[in-house]
């Protein structure tokens, strides 16, 4: 079994979904929730085994599992893990049980909801692990349907519009991705049997004329930029986040957006290194605009979920900026930021959801003074706000700091501009917290209950990780560094990645020592 751990991680939720679908009629809602929770916890346990077997010293993909899918078409089921995907998979398998637990209050069509969640988990984990491009695309597209159903079926007032917008934006982006993948596939067949294997296509892409490679880069880029989302393709995100049910927002922000940044790092950089350098400035400008624009938009939001949504645009801009700086610190920082943003923003959406369940409003103006009513809930809120704003000692700080430092080594302008957003983040987060927590209490909010035992169980693990990863990021960087190093060396063939920029940060420097 040990050599098939990755496959098990992908299959577990799907099996759970199949069981739910088969027994849906006789299950009570409670049974369905428990079954889904057990499935996701089991998946998490399997992914921890993947972590145990992971060799931090090795570069390249590990625990590869492959079998022919359609032989005549050159299509394989090919999965493998490296330092980048490892943590994203763990983040996914960790956030899913949390989200299931957080959606205990979903009352309508529980069985169908849980099936959608479990299928979604399979699709997301699959996209992080797939090393065969068409297999990746299959998972990438398969994400859309369950998420579409979750937003459209269990969201708030304007959910249908948001769901369709989400679906069409993402699908429009990925349309070009499909053509680009098929193009590479066609080229790989001259000569020899064609293939979708990422490792083989890397060589195929390297042999392409520069101009062709640049077009293909753009096709890949658009697909992932929509998903990230990068300015100006971000407009679906505030709608989707705002209208989705709590767990939907958590997973959208926590996991789904990372598929985009992961795709940029995994596919764009390794397949089209020359084009990546060529477009780096262009992409960085978009990222910086996104960072600042997202932060400014967050400043003026009155809907707290929309505020968090725009903060995601800003925070994910950091990831893209870091990825396209091609320095060790920046890229590693970007990967850290992916994980930490998943935890921090996931936690923010959880808390906003809990506040909403009690007050039935998302308008900041209609809240206030809640700290006195629900001290524990708002205490947790404050913790997460600090984490999200990048307070040193909590996780987001490390990622953002590394990205800014790493970018600064390449471009002072981008480094300096992105740093502004850190200040803005502190302003909008603390400001919104202030409006929720302090001031006069509304009469109808005076007797709201504080955190329940279930909610503590939802929040505690997330908050704990925010602290752990903030204090001891080496836990992550140890295995991320070799992978990002490999990614950078593909782009900057002339110098080893460690020599780009100085070892300014203890965490990163320490990580480099075996």
């Amino acid at each position: 079994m040990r050599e098939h751990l990755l496959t098990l991680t992908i299959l577990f939720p799907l099996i759970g979904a199949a069981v739910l679908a088969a027994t849906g009629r006789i299950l009570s809602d409670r049974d369905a929730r428990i079954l889904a929770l057990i499935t996701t916890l089991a998946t998490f346990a399997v992914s921890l085994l993947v972590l145990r077997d992971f060799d931090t010293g090795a570069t390249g993909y590990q625990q590869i599992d492959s079998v022919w899918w359609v032989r005549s078409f050159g299509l394989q089921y090919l999965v493998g893990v490296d330092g980048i995907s490892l943590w994203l998979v763990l983040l996914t398998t960790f956030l899913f049980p949390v989200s299931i637990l957080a959606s205990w209050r979903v009352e309508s069509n529980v069985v169908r909801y849980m099936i959608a969640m479990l299928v979604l988990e399979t699709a997301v984990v699959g996209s992080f692990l797939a090393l065969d491009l068409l297999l990746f695309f299959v998972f990438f597209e398969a994400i859309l349907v369950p998420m579409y159903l979750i937003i459209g079926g269990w969201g708030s007032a304007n959910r249908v519009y948001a769901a369709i917008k989400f679906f069409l934006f993402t699908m429009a982006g990925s349309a070009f991705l499909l053509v680009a993948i098929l193009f590479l596939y066609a080229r790989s067949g001259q000569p020899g049997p064609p293939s979708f294997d990422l490792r083989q296509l890397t060589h195929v892409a390297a042999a392409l004329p520069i101009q062709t490679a640049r077009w293909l880069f753009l096709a890949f880029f658009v697909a992932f930029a929509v998903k990230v989302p990068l300015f100006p393709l971000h407009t679906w995100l505030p709608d989707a986040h705002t209208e989705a049910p709590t767990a939907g927002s958590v997973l959208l922000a926590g996991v789904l957006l990372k598929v985009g940044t992961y795709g940029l790092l995994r596919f764009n950089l390794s397949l089209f290194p020359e084009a990546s350098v060529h477009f780096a400035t262009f992409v960085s400008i978009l990222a910086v605009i996104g960072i600042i624009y997202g932060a400014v938009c967050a400043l003026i939001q009155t809907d707290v979920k929309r505020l968090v949504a725009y903060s995601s645009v800003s925070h994910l801009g950091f990831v893209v900026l870091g990825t396209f700086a091609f320095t060790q610190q920046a890229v590693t920082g970007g990967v850290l930021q992916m994980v930490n943003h998943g935890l921090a923003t996931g936690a923010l959406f959880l808390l906003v959801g809990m506040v909403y369940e009690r007050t039935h409003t998302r308008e900041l103006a209609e809240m206030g003074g809640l700290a006195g009513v629900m001290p524990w809930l708002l205490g947790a809120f404050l913790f997460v706000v600090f984490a999200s704003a990048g307070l040193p000692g909590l996780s987001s700080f490390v990622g953002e700091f590394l990205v800014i430092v790493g970018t600064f080594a390449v471009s002072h302008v981008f480094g300096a501009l992105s740093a502004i957003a850190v200040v803005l983040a502190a302003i909008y987060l603390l400001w919104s917290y202030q409006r929720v927590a302090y001031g006069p209490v509304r009469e109808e909010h005076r007797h709201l209950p504080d955190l329940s035992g279930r909610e503590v169980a939802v929040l505690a693990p997330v908050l704990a990780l925010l602290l752990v990863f903030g204090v001891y990021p080496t836990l992550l960087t140890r295995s991320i560094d070799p992978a990002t190093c490999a990614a950078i060396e593909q782009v900057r063939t002339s110098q080893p990645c460690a020599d780009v920029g100085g070892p300014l940060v203890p965490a990163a420097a320490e990580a480099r020592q075996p």
Partner: protein
Amino acid sequence: MIPTPVLEFRPILPEILLCTFAIVGMLYEAFARRPDPAPHLAIATVGIVAAAVTAYSLWDWTGSPYVLGDTVAVDRFSVVARFLLLGAALVGCLYYTHYASRDPGSFRGEFYPLTLFATAGMTLITAANDLIVIFLALELLSLSLYVLTGITGQRRASEAAMKYFLLGAFSSAFFLYGIAMAYGATTSTKIVGVAGPGIVQALAGRTGSQALALLAMALLVVGFGFKVSAAPFHMWTPDVYQGAPTPVVAFMGAATKVAAFFALIRVFDVGLQPLTWDWTPVIYALAIVSIVVGSVLAIAQRDVKRMLAYSSIAHAGFILTGLTAANSTGIRAAMFYLVAYAVVTLGAFGIVMLVSARGEEQTSLDAYAGLTRRSPGLAALMTVFLLSLAGIPPTAGFIAKATVFSAAIGAGNWPLAVVGVVASVVAAYFYLRVIVYMYMREPAEGIESDDGVMPRVAAGVLAAGIVVLGVFPGILTGILEPASIVRW
């Protein structure tokens, strides 16, 4: 003295059996005191199964590849087509039996013989190696379909049948004229000649003027374009799909496309193979126009049958996309697409039939509102079919699209693939809209779903097939591989 060809009837035994059982059905209809669906269905089923068995025995045919004086080809290509068509006919008969049982007064026993005749024409057209035989088969299937379209005798159905007949007759004339030109250019109507040179042999060594041959090609494109409902020859499609009774649309939509495309592949990829450079641009243009027209116009439709009609135009474009490759990869891709499309079409129209019970057919989008509350099973099945039509994994529709685009890109036609994927996004919108109505709207008042078991089982099997083909496409590609080599 005219040489008598050796008569080898086994290769057309499926067609002979279909016609025989059609005649048996007609006799039963004529002499039965009270028309009863059960014996009709039994006769038709036996006929179809017998035809399928004899078709299967042709899979490992070792005799001459062309029989009956080179008019009929015996190859695996036509065996695959026959299976697909017979399956569609069987599902159509099942649907109609249920459909008629909802309103016993409207039962017409002629449905079964006509379906068998249409099927015989369709299976023959995929095996025909002579343009005259293709024309005969085309007329056999068309005339049967015209009658089937109007079989209920309702006003809308009669109008649809009339439109179909007039435009169909028009396109047949084009086709016939094309055959005449082809004969003029090559002095043969055989696609591949064994006794004397056929079209392909005559064209192969040609260096002089090709005017007549090109004219023949253009006219044949018009004739086939009409049958596969490729734009701009698609005008009849929406009206006929909307007006005809749903079981007929299910059968016609799936089977006509399959039959016409298989014949088109044989005529163009084999017969007009020497003119490949001339016909690929035409197919290319037809593909783009069909994809764009079908996808864009479908957005405006509020009637689900009409929407599926426009979507069928777009799908014809996708299949043509694969054929622009003009090689065996393209043929294989198109065959896979046809299988996926036929299965989905049969399934989707089955659901359309079941959405509203009894009496007047409710095909407007509003009838789908809140379908999941009324009958969750139907909504789930319809979702599978719609996702496959939209080309979302893990359904067969995705693999089908990926293979046709891959074939087109492999042949260097990547702009066509770009148009195709962009149109797919547009198309996703109107497929999703149905899902929105089914899952995210309040149920419509006063509409009851049909609780028929038999069509539900049929649709369930088809949906399962779509998912299985989407996850394990290797099952089918293994069969299509040897079948996609059209001999000449």
